């Protein structure tokens, strides 16, 4: 490697300009060998495996789960550890060029046009705009990034220029006169430092590097608007929402990004809330101590704390807890940078005027990321638990219904409320003198909010056994189907109910209701055998062991409390040891006054499904179509494992499902078992229909940032080879669609000077979708709004068709997707994603949270996990 190349390489490794390499259409850090081995982990993807989007368990809003990065608050490129942002990488994965039928147009046509406004703002640049990229070298070399930046910024030659600099790479909007510029500056100690600024690139506005520089510019601007950067988002601490009951404060703010959309550069802003916990690590530890006792206190602390990100009280920095050193106490000494020894207690007293109250607490250990990559010496920071706060919500807290309700109540914003916040932000940006100056100096013009036209797809009819109903609202049709018979149901003859001694009366009452609603929906429920047991999980389990045999069709358990161990032990036993469908319900639920009938109806439907019944259907014009949903979810206990769920329809009416699930190591990263699952599903289809499906459409959920390329190279071939091998002559046509529930665009309809959520079935396939004019980053994608949001703002779901042999017209693809959102039997209404994905999610969630084992294959033909 030549010296110059080495410099370049070093520059690349530490800055996103590496994304230049992305122009070659493959992420730079990956090997491009045609058959990557399943165990090879894309090193650039390490982050993806920890992003919350990959964790299927997190169904809550992103705002509650914000991961706080430990980067420093300076607005520079190396913040993310020099890595290319993961979603950014997906941009450079082209999928559309291979799809002949959509090469010219990826837009649909059916439905009623609807005018929409989006949370997007146009950013205009002069036509000939260019970004100039320079490399800056220091002689003598300076390690401190802060000093590097200070020296360069203070130099007169650059003082009036718009610039962005991360310590090594400098971006300017105006070209310097010479290709190589030599400057010299003086440090405060009087040493002269020579800086050599060398032009390394001239980039057009459409370059991905530019979008990143624009993002940095906007970060700077938001800081000028008195917002704090935490992670990637910006928050206003001066207007907090406080929830003292749960020791939380919420900071309102924005998630912002700048990206290239269909035809132009757009600024996206979405309202976001940062959850801050008013609880120190020491208090958290005290809680653990009280809960678990001394015997396993240290293990529990380590289990719950390691890996969490904490915020220090005094210096506005975040750290990841990598270890806890129980042997170090605040009264021990450490050596300061200058070599003097001081105790932690004295240090915090002297430096920050803070008196530590607990002198027995251990210290938290955090490995510090080395800013300069060449230093191999690992540096660690010792932190005092009493002075650290936990950030975000723990997994435990997210399962707290009360807490989540409180958070949702505060963070839920009506479309109007959201629109007002956006308008205020845009206004602030345009009015703020510094912000305006910053934009002007880069030649950027912050334009107006974008309007576009969507289409509302025709509504669907719900097909029941002897009745076709046109629901009053597609959001929920439980009323419309009252007294209608479900499509098919197996009669329930031999079944058990296990309840505690105290709950006999409740059980009898409920059973009465259940049988009544069952018969009205065409689901015959015979009288079960009722087993009364003592009120503890062990008694329930031993009753199962004694009474359940393979002839039992279903077991119902009436649980006296919502203790996890009841549910876990029952589900574990009945889904893997002795595979029989099971139904759990809480006594408290059955006791709810005035709701007994609707609860019984709901449970009756779930039970019918668990026996393999079909509730309702929608019209599917395509004959011989199999749809598949795939989702992944991290195991709750074993962080190294992920659960992959695969749910495929096995009849042309798309009412019966084949569900498989597997646990595999996280290092395998993407679903490794798809070929086996797909082949299994095709066999099952063949058994039921005496032929193979002509078309297979796969919806893949749970895709993390930056994984698109891996999906294309690794998952699609698996599915494809299974489909081709299944038949000797004409094989099924395959389409693969990546489903994302968390996307930044939001759409509103304007009505009487107010804005509202768009109608159900709204499709957006222009303007806000990804570029089509730029050949390299082509996508065939659309947004669909298929769920109702009561009081809040609806989040559209993004569909990205990454593989498509079927040659379905975009219009048909969109309508099929919409139809599939009607078919989730746990909810008589539309849901946000296609039913097979929701089934796959439900299945993986159950396995990851409760069973931790693969469910028996014998249950694969029924929706036993509802």
């Amino acid at each position, binding site marked *: 490697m030549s010296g110059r190349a080495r410099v370049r390489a070093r520059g690349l490794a530490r800055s996103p300009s590496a994304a230049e390499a992305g122009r070659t259409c493959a992420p730079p850090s990956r090997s491009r060998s045609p058959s990557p081995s399943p165990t090879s982990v894309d090193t650039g993807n390490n982050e993806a495996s920890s992003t919350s989007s990959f964790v299927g368990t997190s169904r809550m809003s992103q705002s509650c789960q914000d991961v706080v990065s430990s980067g420093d608050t300076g607005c520079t490129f190396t913040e993310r550890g020099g890595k290319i942002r993961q979603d950014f990488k997906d941009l450079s994965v082209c999928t559309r060029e291979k799809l002949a039928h959509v090469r010219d147009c990826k837009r649909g046509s059916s439905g009623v046009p609807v005018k929409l406004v989006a949370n997007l703002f146009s950013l205009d640049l002069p036509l000939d705009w260019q970004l100039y990229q320079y490399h800056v070298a220091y002689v003598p070399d300076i390690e401190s990034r802060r000093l590097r930046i200070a020296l360069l910024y203070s130099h007169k030659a650059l003082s009036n220029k718009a610039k962005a600099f991360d310590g090594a790479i400098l971006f300017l909007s105006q070209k310097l006169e010479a290709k190589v510029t030599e400057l010299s500056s003086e440090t405060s100690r009087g040493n002269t430092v020579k800086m050599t600024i060398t032009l390394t690139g001239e980039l057009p506005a459409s370059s991905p590097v530019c979008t990143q520089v624009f993002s940095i510019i906007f970060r700077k601007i938001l800081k000028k608007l008195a917002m704090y950067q935490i992670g990637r988002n910006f928050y206003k*601490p001066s207007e907090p929402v406080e929830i003292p009951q749960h020791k939380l404060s919420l900071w309102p703010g924005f998630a912002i990004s700048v990206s290239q959309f269909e035809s132009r550069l757009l600024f996206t802003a979405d309202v976001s809330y940062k959850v801050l916990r008013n609880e120190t690590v020491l208090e958290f530890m*005290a809680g653990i*101590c009280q809960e678990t006792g001394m015997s396993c206190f240290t293990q529990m602390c380590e289990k719950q704390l390691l890996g969490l990100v904490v915020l220090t*009280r*005094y210096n506005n920095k975040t750290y990841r807890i990598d270890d806890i050193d129980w042997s170090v106490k605040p009264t021990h000494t450490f050596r300061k*940078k200058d070599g*003097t020894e001081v105790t932690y207690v004295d240090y915090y007293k002297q*430096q920050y005027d803070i008196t530590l109250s607990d002198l027995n*607490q251990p210290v938290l250990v955090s490995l510090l990321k080395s800013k300069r990559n060449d230093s191999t010496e690992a540096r660690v920071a010792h932190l005092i638990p009493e002075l650290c706060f936990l950030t975000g919500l723990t997994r435990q807290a997210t399962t707290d219904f009360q807490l989540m309700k409180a958070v949702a109540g505060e963070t839920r914003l009506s479309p109007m409320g959201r629109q007002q916040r956006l308008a205020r932000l845009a206004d602030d940006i345009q009015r703020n003198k510094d912000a305006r100056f910053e934009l002007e100096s880069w030649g950027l013009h912050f334009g107006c909010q974008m309007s576009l036209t969507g289409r509302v797809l025709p509504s669907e009819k719900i097909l029941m056994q002897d009745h076709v109903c046109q629901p009053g609202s597609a959001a929920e049709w439980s009323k419309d189907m009252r007294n209608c018979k479900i499509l098919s149901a197996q009669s329930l003859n031999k079944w058990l109910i296990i309840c505690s001694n105290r709950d006999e009366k409740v059980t009898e009452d409920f059973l009465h209701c259940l049988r009544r609603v069952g018969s009205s929906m065409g689901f015959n429920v015979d009288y079960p055998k009722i087993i009364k047991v003592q009120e503890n999980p062990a008694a329930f389990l031993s009753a199962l062991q004694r009474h359940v045999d393979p002839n039992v069709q279903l077991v119902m358990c009436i649980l006296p409390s919502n*203790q996890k161990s009841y549910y876990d032990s029952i589900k574990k036993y009945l889904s893997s040891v002795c595979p029989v469908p099971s139904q759990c319900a809480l006594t408290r639920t059955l006791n709810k006054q005035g709701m007994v009938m609707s609860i019984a109806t709901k449970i009756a439907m779930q039970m019918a499904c668990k026996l393999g019944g079909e509730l309702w259907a929608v019209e599917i014009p395509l004959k011989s179509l199999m749809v598949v949903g795939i989702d992944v979810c991290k195991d709750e206990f074993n962080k190294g494992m992920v659960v992959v769920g695969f749910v495929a329809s096995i009849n042309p009416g798309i009412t019966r499902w084949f569900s498989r699930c597997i646990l595999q190591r996280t290092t395998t990263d993407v679903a490794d078992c798809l070929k086996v699952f797909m082949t299994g599903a095709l066999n099952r289809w063949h058994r039921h229909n005496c032929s193979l499906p002509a078309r297979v459409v796969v919806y893949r959920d749970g895709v993390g940032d930056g994984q698109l390329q891996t999906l294309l190279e690794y998952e699609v071939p698996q599915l494809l080879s299974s489909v081709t091998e299944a038949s000797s002559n004409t094989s099924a046509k395959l389409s693969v669609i990546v489903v994302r529930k968390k996307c930044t665009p939001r759409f509103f309809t304007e009505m009487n000077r107010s804005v509202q959520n768009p109608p159900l079935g709204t499709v957006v396939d222009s303007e806000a979708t990804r570029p089509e004019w730029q050949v390299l980053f082509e996508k065939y994608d659309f947004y669909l709004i298929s769920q109702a949001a009561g009081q809040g703002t609806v989040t559209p779901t993004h569909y990205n068709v990454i593989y498509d042999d079927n040659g379905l017209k975009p219009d048909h693809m969109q309508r099929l997707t919409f139809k599939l959102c009607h078919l989730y039997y746990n909810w008589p209404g539309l849901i946000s994603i296609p039913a097979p994905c929701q089934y796959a999610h439900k299945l993986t969630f159950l396995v990851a949270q409760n069973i931790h084992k693969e469910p028996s294959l014998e249950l694969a033909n029924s929706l036993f996990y509802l």
Partner: protein
Amino acid sequence: MDHCEVLSKKVIEFKPPVYEQRYYFVKNLVNQHGHKKIADLGFGDATLLWMLKYHRCVQYLVGVDIAAKPFEWGGGRLSPGVGSYIIPRELDLTITLYRGSAVQKDSRLCGFDLITCIELIEHLDSEDLAKFPEVVFGYFSPGMVVISTPNSEFNPLFPASTFRDPDHRFEWNRKQFQMWALDVAKLYHYSVEFSGVGDPPAGAEHVGYCTQIGVFQKNRAKPTESSISEPEEHVYEVVSFLWEVYTTSYPSLQQSKYFRFTLSIEAVKSIDLMKSRFLRGPRRKEGDRVVPLGSCTPQDGLTEAQRAEIEQSPKPYSVGEKFYVPLERLLAYPKVNLLVAGSTEKLRTVLAEGLRLNGDQTAVQVELVDYRTQRLFDEHLVSPALES
């Protein structure tokens, strides 16, 4: 400096470096005297201001520098961090930076408890140096002035024989500095004590400190206390030459919204501990080991006496699925007690705004459900997450 880094590699002349010793010298003075209003003339990179902002007694910090620029550095470190919002200070704090000369009269610098001029005077030309005493001592007239400057007698110990900084106009020996200082003190009714930082190496003790420091204390006229409490605007004619480049205020318990929230949080923390003890009571009887005191387990920062006092206060109780904690019980917790200065009435008023109290307003009511064991059963009846 920001965190306790476990490393060491630099070999230096002074431990800690002499600039840091100067700052610690000031910090010690502030600790000793509890100054409320402090101005730093020639604040440079704002390190001293940043160090002083952590003092609990400080409520008003001002920096003046001829080269102060907005948004370049300081702002970041001087503005309140996320932590300052989570645990607000007890007292308000405002930090303001001005650009301008230290020898310019500006009424906004009058009435301070302390004015620091750390390594400033040696940068002044003779004209400014002549104006300096009149402006700082005569016009600003703070309770205390700290002036540090190089001790030229120490210079021979350095390799370079000239001034320590090319911008220095002069470097005085001890005698020169002390003469100047005594004259100034006499003229403006201050008393002065001399000190310094940066001990000379063994064998060179005769040269004195590397940095010489004069601490000037205003001679107390009879009714000083009352003149301090007067609002400044009435005392001084408003003169403003300095250009404000930055200002920020910290959240504090003196602001009602932060007080209310902090008190509620403290109350909830105590309630949560009581609740969890209450919920786990029976299990402990089954033979769980009782946590031994003095081990490495956190003890909620309570002393034995405080524990005993808590035990004696009215006990929490439950009715149905509700858990009640008497306000009296909460008051036994030192942090809560301190915040409301022992007043039940105040506690009641504030908690009633954010939390739920029982019928006769004598206890806080919370749900008895414990989130650590609570599950979401979407198996029944929770609609699939529609909302985000």
